[in-house]
């Protein structure tokens, strides 16, 4: 945490309730937290603790029932759907548990999707995407489609896609849940390296102890509340 820098993410007294049949489920109960540039933070907790809900709110995919969510200086409640789309496109990178690559696009095309949406010219896109693919260890595999790659390779493409648009923060929801331990180790090394060398801000949600162990900052959630927020050595 930094005292001088402005937070990229700021949650103030956020609650989120869902209707489940006739009952109301309180997924977040007055959560407040700040994420600063360059942090590698892990939201941990058991299933139903609210970590994914928090990640969705920060990712501008959901709106809070009450409270304030600010991302990169924008109060999300004041943004239209189109503006939320632009915020996600320009300032937030996503890495999903199930990779979620577009199956008909090659590794290169998947990685360049966001840049193409931003209207960046093909030459600049190529330079950036080829560099990123090399950085995530996929040099020479750029023409492969998702079904021609392993799970680990697909998640590396997803990381390259998340980083391509130079986002303010990368949100990774259980990024190692679908890969074997060796691949998970390699992916964590990669994200740690990207955080260290490129100062990419990462926010993970996980209940994988290996991921928690790598976090510089660990936020533990239980029943929709933050019960622990600590910086690790």
């Amino acid at each position, binding site marked *: 945490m930094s005292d001088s820098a402005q937070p990229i993410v700021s949650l103030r007294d956020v609650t989120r309730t869902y209707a489940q049949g006739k009952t109301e489920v309180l997924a977040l109960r007055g959560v407040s937290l700040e994420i600063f540039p360059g942090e590698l933070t892990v939201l941990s907790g058991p299933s139903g603790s609210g970590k994914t809900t928090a990640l969705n709110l920060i990712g501008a995919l959901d709106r809070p029932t009450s409270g304030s969510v600010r991302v990169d200086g924008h109060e999300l409640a004041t943004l239209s759907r189109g503006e939320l789309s632009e915020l996600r*496109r320009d300032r937030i990178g996503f890495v999903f548990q199930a990779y979620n690559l577009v199956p008909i696009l090659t590794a290169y095309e998947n990685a360049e999707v966001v840049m193409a949406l931003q209207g960046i010219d093909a030459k600049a896109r190529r330079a950036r995407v080829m560099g990123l693919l090399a950085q995530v260890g996929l040099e020479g595999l750029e023409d492969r489609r998702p079904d021609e790659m392993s799970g680990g390779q697909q998640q590396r493409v997803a990381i390259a896609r998340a980083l391509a648009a130079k986002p303010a923060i990368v949100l990774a929801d259980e990024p190692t849940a679908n890969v074997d331990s060796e691949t998970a180790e390699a992916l964590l090394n990669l994200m740690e390296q990207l955080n260290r060398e490129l100062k990419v801000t990462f926010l993970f949600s996980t209940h994988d102890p290996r991921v928690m162990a790598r976090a510089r900052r660990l936020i533990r959630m239980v029943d929709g509340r933050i019960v622990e927020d600590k910086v690790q050595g």
Partner: protein
Amino acid sequence: MNLPRMAWRNVFRNARRSAVTISAMTVALAALLVLSGLIRGLYLGMERDLVELELGDVQVHAPGYRNRPSIYERLEAPDSIIAPLEAAGFRVSSRLRGSGLAAGAKESAGAQLIGLDPARDATVSDIGTKVAEGRWLEVSDARGVVIGRKLAKSLHVGVGDTLLLLSTAADGSMANELYTVRGVLGPVGDGLDRSAVFLVQQTLRELLELPEGVHQLIVRRPPTVPLLDAKAAVVAAAPGQDVNTWKELMPTVAQLLQSTEGSMMLMFLVVYLAVGIVVLNAMLMAVFERIREFGVLKAVGVKPRTVVALVFLEGAAQTAIAVGLGLLLAVPALLYLSTTGIDVGSMSAASLGGATFSQHWVAVLDRQTFTGPIGALAFVVSVAIGYPALKAARLDPLEAIHHR
């Protein structure tokens, strides 16, 4: 993200489903292209026959003649009308008309007597080429007549037989003369088939004791002059006379022909309704199978309108393939039908609003033959794709990402 490329690849993602969709579109389009060419050929043939055989583009009569035809209602100075029109590139032929009785050896029937100059008339009408038996009029054969096929049948006369014509001459006296049937026409039009007796103009003039004037001018316009402009030119050349286009002379047929495009479009839409259901089903399946993918795209910043564009491009790609294949099937058939055609000998006896169908039914192969069926297909596919496209665009990214 190259949307057209993505759409193209998506078409081949479920090859079997796309093949069924494209096949349905192809078969319907090919069938409707051929049908469009044939129906347009049928109606345009009717229009052409009406104009080229019977009516011309524009006709001139003395005021009141059409409502109450009388040999006394004549255009007294036809040359003063013909000369300026011919100078402007129009072709004009005068006709003398009367009514009377035609009699063979045993039978008699009412007849319309039409006197014309064979050489001049050939510049405005193809009627002389429609002789089924015998030959057309010749100036040198003043006593030779050509009659309609139904009249010949009812009088039991044929080529070489004698025909008695009875009428009232202009001086009120009984006009009667014997003539020889030189030719019998094939089917040209119901009215002419039943009662027409064509004579050399001078012969009819002598029979009816009409020293001057004519009853009718038949005008053909230069190909580049629109019909209404042609009428205006004729009105200017024949002030005070009754000038009408062929559409005004036969309004029922004109309306029928005018409604052809609308009727065909309705037929296209009915046939395409089935295709639309296939497309709607296929595109809905394609969207439902990819809910998570659309969710991811929207999560990373793809806007709803881009999703709509992607789904529409997928439909457009399939339509484009179907149009290519449809043309490949239909064009050879249309080429054959527009050159060789279909012989409809028995059908040619039928008439519609006074116009008869051509004996030789040929398809028309022009721009409109293609624009109607292809345009209607594009319209139906667009409507069918609208719902799946909006469905995809309105997906909530959060729900869609977690869709299973």
